């Protein structure tokens, strides 16, 4: 009996103390991983604060960013300092070179994952941040470089934040919050702040996206009214509008002409000319559309509608390519007059009444 008891105890001890796979070792590893995540989050927050405010954060600011009580934040700063990652300068937390390198890596990993999740895995924009936040701690610098290459050296994440290159400084474009932007002057959206999530979802619900041109129509303490390039208006609370950062629309950038519409709205049997692929489509998806021949100036014709109405097949450069509605919605086209051209495929169908004018209320000035 006692022998069995001893055996049991030995078994339990082994289970707990077994090197590397025992419970104790696992718990230690879990603790270490937790601590590393905390350290990495802190480094990233410090770096972001520094980039945004051009000054180092105070421990209080850091506590706020990390949602930690001040005492714990102070302890964290001490830990970081002990590891040579930060130093205290005049009551503020300053990243050392080592700390900055690490922080840049995490920032880069985060933004690369966001790019990947959005472009390649098709995640909705408002879900990429939390997932990237989990994944960023699991990417080695080598793997990050591979991801960077595989994604085609993206310059920004889907929210418009710059992705640090493999070497050199982080480019920090100077942007203006929409709340400070003069009324009536055209602007291009450079960055949509994805935190807090509630405000970000409002921006997405409003149809705003990075790269879009907007104009402030009205600004009062209660609301900011925007005109999107496709002619839709949208209203935002000033607190939310402050999360939209814009740059001046450059002189040579035209607004999307009024007679342009997304390909999915092109009527059946109508013909059109591709104007542009939406800037929101990046990476492989963009390349693919271009390779299939949807380049500016290409003639497109609706060839066929599937049984359930979606997808539709388009005749482009002599081949019939099927696109789903959400893909076609990202291709801007200008309908052409429906005179039968040599490129059209047959003689039936293109009758005048289902032609384009109904879809294009204001012909090009």
């Amino acid at each position, binding site marked *: 009996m006692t022998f069995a008891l001893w055996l049991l105890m030995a078994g339990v001890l082994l289970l707990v103390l077994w090197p590397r796979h025992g419970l104790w070792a696992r718990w230690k590893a879990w603790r270490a991983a937790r601590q590393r995540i905390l350290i990495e989050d802190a480094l990233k927050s410090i770096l972001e604060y520094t980039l945004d405010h051009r000054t180092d954060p105070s421990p209080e600011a850091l506590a706020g960013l990390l949602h930690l009580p001040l005492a714990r934040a102070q302890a964290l700063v001490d830990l970081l300092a002990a590891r040579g990652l930060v130093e205290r300068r005049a009551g503020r937390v300053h990243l050392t070179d080592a700390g900055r390198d690490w922080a840049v890596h995490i920032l880069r990993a985060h933004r690369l994952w966001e790019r990947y999740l959005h472009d*390649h895995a*098709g995640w909705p924009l408002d879900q990429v941040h939390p997932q990237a936040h989990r*994944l960023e701690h699991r990417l080695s610098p080598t793997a990050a470089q591979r*991801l960077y290459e595989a994604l*085609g050296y993206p310059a920004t994440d889907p929210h418009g934040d710059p992705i640090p290159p493999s070497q050199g400084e982080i480019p920090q474009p100077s942007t203006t919050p929409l709340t400070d932007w003069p009324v009536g002057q055209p602007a291009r959206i450079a960055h949509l702040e994805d935190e807090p999530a509630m405000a970000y979802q409002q921006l997405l619900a409003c149809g705003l996206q990075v790269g879009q041109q907007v104009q402030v129509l009205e600004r009062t303490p209660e609301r900011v009214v925007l005109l999107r390039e496709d002619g839709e208006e949208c209203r935002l609370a000033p607190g939310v509008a402050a999360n939209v950062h814009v740059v001046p629309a450059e002189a040579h950038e035209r607004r999307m002409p009024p007679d342009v519409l997304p390909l999915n709205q092109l009527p059946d049997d109508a013909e059109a000319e591709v104007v542009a692929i939406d800037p929101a489509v990046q990476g492989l998806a963009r390349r693919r559309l271009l*390779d299939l021949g949807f380049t500016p100036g290409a003639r497109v014709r609706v060839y*066929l509608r599937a*049984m359930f109405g979606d997808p539709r097949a388009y005749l482009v450069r002599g081949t019939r390519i*099927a696109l789903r509605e959400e893909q076609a919605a990202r291709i801007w086209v200008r309908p052409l007059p429906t005179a039968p051209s040599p490129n059209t495929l047959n003689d039936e169908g293109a009758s005048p009444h289902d032609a384009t004018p109904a879809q294009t209320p204001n012909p090009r000035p």
Partner: protein
Amino acid sequence: MTLPRLKPQTRAPKEPQARPLGASFPTPACATCPAAASLAPLGADDGRVADYVVALAGNPNTGKSTLFNRLTGLRQHTGNWPGKTVTRAEGAFEFNGKRYRVVDLPGTYSLLSTSEDEEVARNFILFGRPDAVIITVDATALERNLNLVLQILEITDKAIVAVNMMDEARRKGLDIDTRALARDLGVPAVPIVARTGEGVSRLLQTLEALVKGEIRTHPRRVQGSEVFQQALQTLMAEVEALLPGLPSARWVALRLLDGDPRIIEALRSGELHALAQGQATQTRVQVPSTRINGDMERLLAVPGPQAPGWQTPDAATQARIEALLRKAEELRRGLGPAWQDAVVEALYAEAERIARRVVHRQGQPRRYDWDQVLDRLLTSPVTGLPVLMLMLGVVFWITIQGANVPSELLARALFWLEARGAALFEALGLPWWLTGFLWHGVYRGLAWVVSVMLPPMAIFFPLFTFMEDLGLLPRIAFNLDWLFRKAGAHGKQALTMAMGFGCNAAGVVATRIIDSPRERLIAILTNTFVPCNGRYPTLIMLATVFIAAQFPPAYASFVAALAVIVTILLGIFFTLLVSWGLSRTVLKGLPSAFTLELPPYRRPNFLQILYTSFIERTIFVLRRAMATAAPAGGVIWLLANITVGGQSLAWHIAGFLDPLGRLMGLDGVILLAYIIAIPANEIVVPTMIMVYQNASMMIELDSLQALRDLLVGQAGWTLLTAANLMLFAILHNPCATTILTIYKETGSKKWAAFGALMPLGLGIVVTILVATVVRLLGYG
């Protein structure tokens, strides 16, 4: 949609004995004959040193494989289905006494993207240093095809454009001025019709002249914007300084500007240096892997270092290489965000210009007339669904009805042989257990599977291949995409699912046509929910014996058919449901994309169809099934004939499984039959009957009435048992062949295990639910 090739060497046509090869024989026969006669297809490349290496490139669906088959005499499947080249295709032929090795590259629209097919194609053209590249283009869509031609001409000067499908172009009233095309491109252009062989001899003569250096080419290089030109020139100068003699310096500079990881690696490892010194660093085309990286982390797994066949650069060179790479990155940043768009646009603009000069339309365009009529019929909301159902129905009807008689004959012949064999063994005085195990166990299992499986597959696969080659399948995918999109899947899954009706393992392999990892994995994991033709017999038997028997005889056969159809629809429902669940949970992070091209309808080649469907599909599946059925037959015999305490082992196991079986509305014998029938579902029913009757081998009953008496009278089956068994027949683990195929296709034990256990778990849960509800309602 082809299955992996079975040892191409064994299928290669015999070495042409009549035709002397090489220098050891004089070739008097061909001193006078026309050039075409001196083409000798040599079939699969037998590894002998070739005089020249020729790469075949081109857009998907431009007749590349047809030309390949014509040159080499091989039978590479030429399905009318863009983007399906996943098999290695190398062959050889002899022309005017010289051996040419032909490499069929994957069909692509472009060479600029990061897709695997494009990487394979561009890397071989660069690193393989082929003596010539034959670019097949579709004469009816020249503009689109020229985009790729221009890109290839950026890499190599040794190219010939084979303007294929001249007959179709003529029918459409298109006149292609190939002389003007050759002048514009700066490389030879030859009009051909690969299907009939028209113009191929001229193509070969041109090829010969090109590889011998008798033709000088001046390929057109696309200019692009000023800023881009400047950046490219700067980088090209640096590349040439570092690697003097590199044949494609401009292309390498362009790829470095683009940041192509493969080229960067080649630069760092010294591969480009070796290339500059005239060494072809890649002699074989890499087969694009069909495996899926099932995890986000694994997507980034760094491939291990491989021993290079060239020297690694010294420290000084390495420093220069790094400087070059920094320069490339700096230039790239200087070009701004949209420069890659501009490159593609410039290429297409050039292609448009050339096409406008070269293509002349004669008379009224009558393009796609029949195509469009047919397409409208297939995709209209009114006629689409009925036509689709009709096609499916006809295929099933032909398969099931047509297989009856051959199955019967085959079974009779094979079982006759079993009786003879067993009698022979007995006459020889061999022990009874040996006879039993080998003949009534192993052989009988094999014979059973072959006789049930072979006839329907030999009918179903040719029908399916016929629809594939005709071009119908992309339309079906197009039509049903909406449904599958709602489930987070790809329209092409409709086809892999349809293939699953023939055989789930073949369906899993067929998922290679889906180029997006997430959607492909979904299609693989859910394929087992549609019953393959090994499972119809069970379904039909149950529907006839139990469900139809509840109705007056006049309606019986109709009700039975209806019950089977309902089961199949349930299978499709579960396919969509599980696809939906998977795409929102475990597979959420994998890359997802949708592309689908509707190719023109083409007249299928019947010999090719028979060949493809028999050799590449039927025999492939049959071989895998036989490999697993034989041992299963042995195990079944052992279970039935080893007795413990007066009862067979099978009986004991069935008794042990009985409580779970009862809970699921089934019984222990059924579960046992499914466990031992993992290799092939065909033997489920014979095994059940064997255990119920306490027989010593798998048997079948002569009449349905006898079957009914056995199952209802003796085994105590109810309507619930039959209904739940029909459910369980579609919701259980796939057969061993399919599990093995899932493992091979995904390269992951995890996904193979998931693919086996998830449907089984679902089946157990669903049958328990049904049984419980029915019992609570007071039935059963």
